[in-house]
């Protein structure tokens, strides 16, 4: 199933990140093509979140370059806000805006940033809510939602901007176990629709099922990269073997 999508959607070259003296990422290279569903796994503190947050510059990298749709977004002169509109992000803690209802959460960015009319933005938001089965909660406030509902709203809020890539940082880690499934279902649907995704997670079963590529991060770099069957079925790197034996 090799489709030629042209040049990579995201190209990471020699990416490094230091917090003061602490080297968290070093010399990372990665190409992400359109439609890729890249899962990043690895032990706690290995730099997974930092890597993801560097991709949309929530964290400023200290070395290397990131090209997104051909533009070097690590260039300090670039208007990163414009590029971020095309990169959706979903956080572990949902980060819905508590002073707005669900619909308002979803239409704020499309209206203010893409100059959509309220009726157009609302129509699109309702269609998205329909898709994740939450149309009846359109006028609920975040505090009235369960964790699983909050995270599904956070996903469609990001989707409302029609991004070209979605970044997920442990989207199910803050959820009660019985709510994990409903969020994974939404992500599975997205992957099926060939949304480009970069997902940091501890859900190995889900990674195995949905990923097109799985990356193993340790000590600030990717030590192994493979399609999921190989990654989980026939791991090469010793550290990965040790990691998998602990988490599987």
């Amino acid at each position, binding site marked *: 199933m090799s489709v030629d999508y042209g040049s990579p959607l995201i190209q990471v070259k020699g990416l490094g990140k230091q917090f003061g003296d602490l080297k968290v990422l070093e010399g990372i290279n990665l190409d992400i093509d359109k439609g890729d569903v890249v899962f990043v796994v690895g032990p706690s503190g290995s730099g997974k979140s930092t890597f993801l947050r560097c991709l*949309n510059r*929530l964290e400023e990298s200290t070395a290397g370059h990131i090209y997104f749709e051909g533009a070097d977004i690590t260039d300090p002169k670039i208007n990163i*806000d*414009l590029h*971020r*509109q095309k*990169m*959706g*992000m979903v*956080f572990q*803690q949902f*980060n*819905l*805006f*508590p*002073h707005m209802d669900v619909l308002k959460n979803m239409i*704020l*960015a499309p209206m*203010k*940033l893409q100059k959509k009319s309220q009726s157009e933005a609302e129509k699109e938001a309702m269609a998205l809510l329909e898709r994740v089965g939450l149309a009846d909660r359109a006028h609920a*406030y975040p*505090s*009235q939602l369960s964790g699983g509902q909050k995270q599904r709203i956070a996903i469609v*809020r*990001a989707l409302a*901007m029609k991004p070209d890539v979605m970044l997920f940082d442990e989207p199910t880690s803050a959820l009660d176990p019985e709510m994990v499934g409903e969020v994974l279902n939404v992500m599975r649907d997205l992957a099926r629709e060939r949304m480009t995704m970069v997902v940091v997670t501890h859900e190995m079963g889900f990674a195995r099922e949905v990923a097109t590529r799985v990356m193993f991060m340790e000590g600030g770099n990717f030590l192994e990269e493979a399609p999921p069957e190989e990654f989980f079925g026939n791991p090469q790197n010793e550290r990965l073997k040790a990691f998998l034996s602990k988490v599987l």
Partner: protein
Amino acid sequence: MSQGIYLNFIKDDRWKYITDGLKVTLEVTLFAVLIGIAIGFLIAVVRSTYDKTGKLKLLNGICKIYLTVIRGTPVLVQLMIIYFVIFGPVKISKVLVAVISFGINSGAYVAEIFRSGIMSIDQGQFEAGRSLGFNYVQTMWYIIMPQAFKNVLPALGNEFISLLKETSVGSYIALQDLTKGGDIIRSRTYDAFTPLIAVALIYLGLVLLFSWLIQILERRLRQSER
């Protein structure tokens, strides 16, 4: 008793010193609080921008000096300096001087109220805004400020109440406020008890009234969160 009331309030329409004074007190307090909110808002934005991004270093330094000086000196001294020194040579309404002085003073306290309100908003809110593509100012305006403002409304109400009482030192520059009104009556009737107790009761009534309004507001805000 009724004779005291007649002498202090009815005779020569002396009650007007109280009502006119009350009007001045409320006027000065209201406009000073508005100036304080404007100054406080700007300073809080500068200070939290500096804290978050390291930008606006020079402005941040100026703000810090302002905060230190204003909060480190008595409000009465500030008032007298502004009236006798800064506006000494020019003829200017005392009400205006009081509004400016108390506004500048209040701004320093409101700034810290706002700043703590901004800082109390979870960093994740900021990141969610930025990740959608909002720039720093838009994120502050649409996402952080509305939440911060809601959080600090009760504290702003309390600032209004303390300012209401503080303006009584305006009588040092002969501002015709509520306190001065009572004092003028005292000097006419040589009865200190009745007019001063009346003034005290009016202040107390106002403070209780505004505290009650703040409580209602707080309850409303809490309900809308749940």
